[in-house]
């Protein structure tokens, strides 16, 4: 990966993949939504934001090393 901004797979592709897998296994996203309590949603959201940041930092570090 030459540019850290570039994604290995288009977001849409991943979305379709996940959606297909869920549907194939009979999972209804609408149903799932109501299964999760609001506070848990908040926690997951924070966790994912955190992970996202870590991954970005990691990739930026790599890009930085490269340009040096």
């Amino acid at each position, binding site marked *: *990966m030459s540019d*850290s901004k570039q*994604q*290995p*797979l288009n*977001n849409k592709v*991943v*979305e379709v*993949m*996940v*959606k297909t*897998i*869920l549907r*194939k*296994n*009979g*999972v209804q*996203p609408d149903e*799932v*939504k109501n*299964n*999760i309590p609001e506070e*848990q*949603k908040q926690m*997951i*959201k924070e*966790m*994912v934001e955190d*992970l*996202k940041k*870590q*991954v970005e930092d*990691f*990739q930026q570090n*790599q890009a930085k*090393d*490269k340009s*040096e």
Partner: protein
Amino acid sequence: MTIYRHSEYDFDLSRGKGDRYSYFMEEPLRSCSCGHSCSGKCSNESSNRPTDTRAESDFTSNNNAFEMQEGTELSFMDQESAELIWVKESCNITVSSTDTQIGVSLQAALQLAIALVLNISIADGTQRDAVSQELTQNFNMAQKNKQKIFIYNTKDAVVTTRDTDLALNLQLMLQVLVALLLLVEIL
């Protein structure tokens, strides 16, 4: 100066180590009693042992391979990177090599997060196992990265080595996680 770094990561977040099976091996074509060349079990063959034959023809025609497994294969990742840098009869050489350890722990964290979200959002255990297995199957991979650098009779050189495979994989897992969350409307 000789630097040798070798690391092997073996991830298996499932309960214990699972055996991996590959079910899609092509069997050689063979001619059989029906006169056709058939792969694996002949579809035209009359069945002498009904139960047996049924199981086997399902085996070759059903593409839901995970149903045939013992449910132990979740996410398996095998990474190996080896670096050998040899500097000989030289001076003023700067060598920097990226340490992938942070990346590896990040990868484990991402896997854990995906499993967690699935755990919370899908109540049915069997359904959850199937979904999680299929999702992680898409980024099962084995990576091997070997670098050998030999510097001889050199002055004032800067050498940088890098392992980019990991970064790519991390990005992919993050994308899956985000897509999953978007679907269940957490983000």
